[in-house]
């Protein structure tokens, strides 16, 4: 069996969807990077350490941001989730 020829460039709609899938793969990585920022902080009980409330607000802020992005992505990708996909979509 041989692979059928595949177009090198995709139509805009397909292109857009592909890039959104890329975004879906990247989103958790973004979350991990942002949640590793506390590693740089000085402990809260040290002098000049990050404030209790500030640290709390930062983490919840990152969290809420991720949820918002995931919501946007789910609107586009959700209806698509059932379909089979081509090899290109694999990481």
């Amino acid at each position, binding site marked *: *069996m*041989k*692979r*059928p020829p595949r177009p090198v460039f995709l139509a805009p709609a397909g292109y857009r969807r592909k890039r959104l*899938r890329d975004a*879906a*793969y990247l*989103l*958790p*990585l973004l*979350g*991990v990077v942002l*949640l*590793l920022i*506390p*590693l740089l*902080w*000085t*402990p*809260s*009980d*040290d002098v000049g*350490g*990050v*404030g*209790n*409330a500030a*640290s*709390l607000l930062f*983490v*919840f802020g990152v*969290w*809420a941001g*991720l*949820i*918002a*992005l*995931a*919501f946007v*992505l*789910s609107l586009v*990708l*959700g*209806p698509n*989730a*059932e379909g*089979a*996909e*081509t*090899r290109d*979509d694999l*990481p």
Partner: protein
Amino acid sequence: MILTFNVLIGVSLGYVAMLFAVAFAADRRARTGQERWLRSPLVYTLSLSIYCTAWTFYGAVGYAARSGLEYLTIYLGPSLVVVGWWWILRKLVRIGRTQRITSIADLVSSRFGKSSVIGAIVTLIAVAGVTPYIALQLQSIALTFAAFTEGLGGGPADVDYVALWTALGLAVFTIVFGTRNLDPSERHHGIVMAIAVEAVVKLVALLAVGVFVVWGLGGGVPGILRRIDAAPIPMWSGDGGRWVGLLFLSAAAFLTLPRMFHVLVVENDDDRHLAVASWAFPLYVLVISLFVVPIAVVGLERLPGGSNPDLFVLALPISEGHGGLALLAFLGGFSSATSMVMVATIALATMVSNHIVAPLWLSVRGPVEVARDLRGTILLARRASVVGVLGLGYVYFQLTGAGVALSAIGLIAFAGVAQILPAMLGGIFWRGGTAIGAGTGLLLGAAVWIWTLFLPSFGTAVIPAEVMARGPFGIGWLRPDALFGIEGVDPLLHAVIWSLLLNAGSFTLVSLLTFPKPLERLQGVQFVNVFEQSGPARTWSRSGAEVEDLLVLAQRVLGGEAALGLFQSEAEGQGKSGHLPDPTPAFLQRLERELAGSVGAAAAHALVGQLVQGPGVSVEDLMAVADEAAQILEYSARLEAKSAEQDRTARALREANDKLTQLARQKDAFLSRISHELRTPMTSIRSFSSLLGEEGLGEDDARRFARIVEAEAQRMTRLLDDLLDLSVLRDGQVSLKRREGLLSEVIDRAILSAGAMHGSLRIVREPASEAVPVVTDLDRLAQVFINLVSNARKYCDAERPELRISVRRRRGQVIVDFADNGSGIPAPEREVIFESFARLSGRRAGQSEPTGAGLGLAICREVMARLGGSIAYLPGQGGAAFRVAFPQGHAAAAE
């Protein structure tokens, strides 16, 4: 409101009764086909919230009071996994559905060549990991009762009883709603609905307490932020290792906890629900953990020193005199605990019955007895496992007492189940993983976890202080808290790092060094390339299986109706009529998958394998799929679909053609048979009447001959009547006299007319199911029944002949089965019994009466066709069995 111990008990019981009602109503709705709204993305997301157990509800505040921000890792890890659903969850869900996965043990076992050993290892790890977790839930319920009863007159003895009764009640609930179906892919609508309701209750309860604390006690948002800044607990401790480690551990546990896998994968029925859950679930856990720090800070401020921070959620409303709010908080905690225990026990019970009991059962029983009562055994095992798992949890609770912090127990469980992660991820992303590698990794990781974390959690009673300080037998580098001499690491991190490192390392190394069996490679491709499969790869190549044996097996595992339905639909798909499809490799594959939905992949494979006999997968078969890249192509899928369709059409055409030539031949044969059937009585009549005309015949002889002449003349009349009847039916000239009547009365009449009341034939009936009002031609229906009953009376050759008549209704159709316990009708003759004059070969020994003309079943078939129904031979019932089906008529609407 005055809260007493009894009020508390009463409220709890009322709440449980409400859950029963919800679960019952959901099950009922699902059974009547109204399951759409039961299965919305919202319900799916809410069901995921069993991640938030009593540990979240009470323990998170305690955790925050002790370690600040760290409690958030427990919710951030899963949030990252769900937000990144495109990576792992989407694949797990798809694999779960295509492979009919029943549990996480089933997933890993199925991936590694449907190995029952791997399944058993994962099951044992899960039981060891989850037992403390269940104990934690019982402990939280007992603790909250204690908090309430302090000063309310209840003694500590009562509290122990509370834990015991809670465990018993949960066992009953889980058995009733969780182990009624055997096929988990039929899903537990009742349970899922109940936990969705509980998800709302616990969220509302925690929010109510939070709102009360922030606006009632803390002085609004600015006030509470000031208090947090001034609190004695540092939010960020600076321990980056624990922060990263716990993020990873909670993410891992979210995927590998049996209950999470159950709701995420097994109960999922639409990939698209994941998209909604990807933001809704993180939102849920964000909201539920929003007020944790405020509650902790205000609790530390207001409650007397030394209060257990695990109980702040409850203690704050109580100490402020808000009984109603306290009660709501109590119910929230109760919800968290009960929903977790229910799903966890279902998941564990499924694993124990499928991966420990079923393989044992199969190895003890010989191949002949295989699957006899398997369904009953599995269900029984599942129920016993529910009780067993809850019992273990209760024992663990009794052993450890109420002294340990809730979050500590939870993390031990997380680390335990995380041992499944390397095998699971390696299995779905890497084709090179082998069963031996996975087994090695699992065992090594579990051993390290038990040694460094699980056993030390029992304190010095299990591992003496001597061993903790110097290692077993004085071997220093084996000290539970300092493996290989690396000291000073946080004990939890120490255990997690070493166990997962050795686990993943040995899995990879051994996999690289060993060679997988064919089935492992095949399953590897199926799992890793789940999105690219053009169709299911064939696990079975050739088959020496008797389809009827397969049907008997399927009936024992899936239940009679489901199995017959499956076989019938497959036969239809193959373009055949009747209940028996050809045992094609594709069908065997489908059957095995259906069975796997009930008993797990390993047991299903073994069961089918014992009947099929031929080699499952050979190296040549593998070569066919070896070039997996080629297999991926979408267009080949289309081609395959097309050629399958052509096959179907060709088959249908061939069958039609066969039928036509057969009809022509049959017409000839029919005339010749009529000639024969008429000439036979005519022969006797001519011969005897000629003798009667002679002189010198004895008087006795003459009388006997005259009687024979009369009997044979009657036989001819009957035959002519039948022929006429048949021809009228075939021409469609018959006018039906539709009347309303009770099916049971028609059956009564048939049994009476067939003369079966006094014979040796025992007739077994189910009066309750027979009370069906029907509108049809009752006389014609009775005619069919009479035929079937008198056939059984004449031909059933069992020592104690028995005819079982069972009635059931399905979608406006009434289905009546007549099954006897004789030797049945041999397969080749089943095709012809409904043809005219198809008398079966040979009379049974000792049979004296003349047989009918062989028109009976042919007439039955015509009658049923006129009534808009059908009659068919039902294979695989032990004896001869016929199924009569016909529309119930207008009476169905009048009900």
